[in-house]
């Protein structure tokens, strides 16, 4: 079984608030279906724009096969900043999954697909406003 670390948010995720208990349930269910061995989730600081906990996960990524996040929308809206974060994982030959969207990044091409999805969703949200 692939060992994975969870990553959840204590800020709003794309304008919506999800209790940590719910985020963990979504991750746990996803890991069960993917047959991952789920370790505890790390909780990102609620401080605006903080990714200090995510950076710590990256420092320790050698201990696991990958990271399972609650949602892609926990990450910065800016594609470049987000790509930098995800590239660090791919370089180490690890993966990052997003349980809510059920998508996974293992290769560079996956980042492009995720960006496409994120951009469409952001545009959609902007139009609604």
């Amino acid at each position, binding site marked *: 079984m692939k060992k994975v670390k969870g990553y959840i948010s204590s800020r709003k995720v794309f304008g919506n608030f999800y209790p940590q208990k719910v985020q963990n349930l979504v991750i746990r269910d996803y890991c069960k279906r993917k047959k991952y061995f789920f370790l505890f989730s790390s909780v990102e600081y609620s401080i605006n724009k903080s990714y200090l906990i995510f950076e*710590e996960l990256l420092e320790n990524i050698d201990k696991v096969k990958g990271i399972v996040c609650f949602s892609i929308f926990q990450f910065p809206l800016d594609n470049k900043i987000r790509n930098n974060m995800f590239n660090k994982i791919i370089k180490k030959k690890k993966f990052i999954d997003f349980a809510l969207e059920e998508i996974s990044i293992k290769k560079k091409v996956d980042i492009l697909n995720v960006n496409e999805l994120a951009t469409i969703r952001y545009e959609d949200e902007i139009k609604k406003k």
Partner: protein
Amino acid sequence: MIFQIQILKDHFNMKKLPKTYSNILLKNGYLIINSENYGSIEWIKNLIIKTIKKNVKKFDGELNNLHKFVSIKKLNKIRMSVYNTINKNTELKKKYFSVCNNVIDELVGNELAIQKKINISFQLPKDNSSLLSLHSDVWSGDSPYEIVVWIPMVDVYRTKSMYILPQNKYSKFLNTLKKLKNKSSNQLYKKLKNDFIWLNLKFGQILIFNQTLPHGNVINEEKTSRISLNCRFKGLFTPYGTKTLGDFFEPFSMKVISKIGTNYKLPKL
């Protein structure tokens, strides 16, 4: 937070402070007291030992030795089982409160909300699977109107314990945080390592701390296991964070006039 610092500045300008729990908390950010009810703390310890024994047949009953009977792989399963079982005991919260009743009364008040489930931590030597890196509870959903009551079930010291940033280092911390905003929490910890205080407690002592102050733990490099409990108390009618009344907290004590008030409805015409 600026408001909090202002209070402290005002406070330190006073020449002589009476040694009340409130003043110690304001000055240091934490206080260590002897249990107000030793019987209760023994009761809690026995409940934990009894529950572990049900899960780990060969366990010798000495919590310091837990690592000799439980593998790190099975640790979380056992921890969850103990956590669920002890929290089913309706006496647990009353006993927990009784170890620091008077202090809570002074620091928080007498109309209280309590965490619905009391947390239990197992820190086995060399285990890196259940660490809580540098954090403030307020950064992950708790409100600043809460206090943590932390009870070790064994003597704790150095890496077998936890660390906290004392109140007088908080401004320095904020500056460092700004400078290291793109780094990891581990780098933040390393930068401030010498400012943290490691809390040494004997079994029977209680730690009460301001959870807005950064704190955490590291790998237990001592030879014995740490088992500790933690629970938050807050004024029932004070603001809640994203951990709210109902999902994370429940009413613990409420005065009659508050009961009358919360049930009162203006007459309708």
